[in-house]
């Protein structure tokens, strides 16, 4: 991870592979500098400036106001609800991810490719629609609406709806990291453990889990970032009742719409810090492993398996 210094005046030093390469194998220095400048300019304009401005806007009224906003009971309750929603949806999606990866990577069965496509489905659906589908089922005009009202159970405009919507949008994250990883690892190690007398749980805890721990951690980091930051889907099912059904992103919206811009940015800076921590952890995991490249952040379709012939 050592940063390379600028090597403007030493074209031959750029890297070993290029020392002996003919001149036509690389771009002239001015083209190279121009491309680097364009790339850095674009990154600065679209990523660095917004990032810096979040903190600048958040601290515009001073540190006192900043901490006062964060200590506000409404902010605290939004933080609590976000922690609850992530605390339920991340472990459940984790369990699902491990089960799905085990069944897909360790066994052959028909329809596997359809299952892979279905697991990916929540990624291609607009957050607004992701929230709406639960309104259609549990809302007052929905399938179970009348029954729920009769029994005085609230799902939509209440905490269960927020948890459900969060579960939906973060559904594929852990599974997507684990499936390719476990497919690549194959099943020979587990088979050896079984032949040597380990039972199913021992095989999983002592052989499989140590093999997938980095992938699992990676999936959890990305899943958690999305769970805590989800806005559109949660916004549909929340009803935005302050102190009750308000998550951190929804609280940002309320403050912003009430024209409390520094307050909105103060709360938003918490989510920005979460994003920066996520990126740092993600980079750290990638540094410690090979092959993990954030398949959930770049939702390319999972690789399909050719139909295996029966042995």
């Amino acid at each position, binding site marked *: *991870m050592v*940063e390379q210094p600028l090597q403007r005046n030493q074209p031959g030093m750029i890297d070993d592979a290029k020392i002996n390469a003919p001149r036509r194998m690389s771009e002239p220095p001015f083209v190279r500098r121009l491309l680097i400048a364009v790339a850095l300019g674009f990154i600065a304009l679209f990523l660095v400036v917004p990032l810096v401005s979040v903190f600048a806007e958040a601290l515009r009224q001073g540190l006192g106001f900043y901490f006062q906003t964060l200590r506000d009971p409404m902010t605290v309750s939004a933080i609590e609800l976000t922690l609850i929603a992530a605390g339920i949806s991340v472990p459940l999606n984790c369990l699902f991810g491990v089960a799905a990866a085990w069944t897909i990577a360790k066994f052959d069965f028909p329809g596997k490719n359809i299952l892979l496509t279905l697991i990916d489905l929540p990624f291609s659906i607009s957050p607004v629609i992701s929230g*709406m*589908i639960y309104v259609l089922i549990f809302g007052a*005009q929905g399938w179970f609406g009348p029954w729920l009202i009769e029994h005085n159970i609230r799902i939509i405009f209440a905490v269960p709806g927020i948890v459900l919507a969060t579960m939906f949008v973060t559904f594929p994250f852990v599974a997507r990291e684990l499936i390719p990883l476990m497919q690549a690892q194959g099943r020979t190690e587990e088979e050896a453990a079984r032949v040597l007398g380990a039972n199913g749980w021992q095989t999983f805890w002592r052989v499989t889990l140590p093999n997938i721990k980095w992938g699992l951690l990676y999936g959890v980091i990305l899943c958690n970032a999305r769970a805590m*930051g989800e806005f559109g889907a949660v916004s549909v099912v929340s009803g935005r009742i302050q102190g009750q059904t308000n998550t951190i992103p929804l609280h940002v919206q309320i403050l912003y719409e009430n024209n409390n*811009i520094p307050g909105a940015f103060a709360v938003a800076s918490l989510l920005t810090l979460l994003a920066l921590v996520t990126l740092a952890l993600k980079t750290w995991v990638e540094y410690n492993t090979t092959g993990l490249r954030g398949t959930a952040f770049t939702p390319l379709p999972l690789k399909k398996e050719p139909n295996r012939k029966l042995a």
Partner: protein
Amino acid sequence: MLRSQQRGVLPGFRLTLGYTLLYLSLIVIIPLAATFVKSSELSWAQFSQTVFSPPALAAYRLSFGASFLAAAVNAIFGFIVAWVLVRYDFFGKQFVDALVDLPFALPTAVAGITLATLYAPNGWLGGWLAPFGIKVSYTQLGIFIALTFIGLPFIVRTVQPVLADLDSELEEAAASLGANRWQAFWRVIFPMLSPALLTGFSLAFARALGEYGSVVFISSNIPMKTQIVPLLIMGELDGFHLARATALAVVMLVISFLLLLAINLLQWWSNRYNATNPA
């Protein structure tokens, strides 16, 4: 029969497959199916009245137009970023590489209020553009900016690994056969990267079509002018017009599924095209 014998010594097939299918059905498949069932309660006349209404048509046009333009701009700049990250060394390269994923990691609501404030007439960037009569926040241009922000990582992250795995022998062959650098790039390197670039473009486009959080703040949400489809659906939901929202959602879902199919085909093509990409 043959298959169950083949499963051999590893346990847990029924348990994990059963749990996977149950959880998938409860969280994803049944709720999505509900949308289609609910929309079938509408007559064709009601359905078409909603999905072909002038505000809906204007929203499709804006959604498709802005998403396409944003993905196109990202295709150009994302490609340059990926190229620079793979091929050159410069100060802070690792930092830039990690930062590319910011639009994924940053909650969309934060992106939304930040861009809206930055590009407002009194904002850091908007104030700089205002004297030229360019308004960004609360216009269609603002929507394009927000969609460009969220789409950037898709292009970089699809092109980057393919470019890194590219076999340099082909470039060497082109150079030794007398091609200059531009010819080698345009005739040899670019065609090999184009499936990945197209895949990244489609992913960015698909994501932009459904985007809500980062757009809602920077758009003034005026029907026929600055209302993209997700905002239109949200408006119908806020007005408790569930049937109309469902009809629009069905249109968007069908479009999303078609795009997903296209991306799957592109991915398959890309894997076949680049033998160096581990299949």
